């Protein structure tokens, strides 16, 4: 059961992050003061992809809630790092971001760590 929940977390998080990143790049830089956050909330309501990303994040969050109830936090959080490796890969392939050798090597180290933590 915990592996099914983990798979849901990974896929939903990656889809949510990709949609968020795509939409936030279109909208420009956002401030983190009260006015900036209010503008951010208004933007979430008016942008389809941002709304969809929130749905994916909600699915991921519900699965995470169920996972921390039945599995150790020291497993649940590190194991979900699989999203990071997948995100770096998709950031390169889908968002066309620059992912240099240093970042790629770092991603591989993290992947190795996640494999060990999940055992």
């Amino acid at each position: 059961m915990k592996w099914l929940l983990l798979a849901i977390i990974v896929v939903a998080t990656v889809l949510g992050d990709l949609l968020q990143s795509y939409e936030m790049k279109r909208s420009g830089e956002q401030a983190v003061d009260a006015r900036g956050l209010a503008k951010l909330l208004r933007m979430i309501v008016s942008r389809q992809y941002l709304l969809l990303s929130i749905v994916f994040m909600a699915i991921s969050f519900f699965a995470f809630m169920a996972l921390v109830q039945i599995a150790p936090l020291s497993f649940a959080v590190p194991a979900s790092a699989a999203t990071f490796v997948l995100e770096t890969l998709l950031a390169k392939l889908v968002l066309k971001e620059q992912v240099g050798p240093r970042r790629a090597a770092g991603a591989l180290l993290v992947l190795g760590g996640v494999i060990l933590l999940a055992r």
Partner: protein
Amino acid sequence: MTDLLAAPSKARTLWLALLVVLLNASGNFSLTLGMRSIPGAMSANPVDYVRAMLHPLVAFGTILLILWLLTRMALLSWADLSFVAPVTAVGYILAALIGHFFLNETVSVTNWIGTFLIFFGTAFVSATKPNTAGCKRGSR
């Protein structure tokens, strides 16, 4: 590589990244404490999860994680996902520490090696500069 960030913006990006990490770790901790005090496993029914959120610790953890989500979204608008993702991955190490010291979880030697691999991998990636190429400037 051309540095597209002015110095103050770069510092603010790093401070925001730190805030993102702390909100994630404290939110996860509160959420875990709350969920473990709720009897019975969660079903696929969304009502179960909404009801669980009424628990004070789950509610507090959820608020912290919503703040984490919003600050992370702001960070995504300041820097590339391939910078944001590894910086926030520091939370994986904090989760293992919280699990070991505060939740009485058994973290094996293999798990600790994995934790340190993640730490070094994250530090390695974080040493690269945040890139804002392709991001148009909006109002601050």
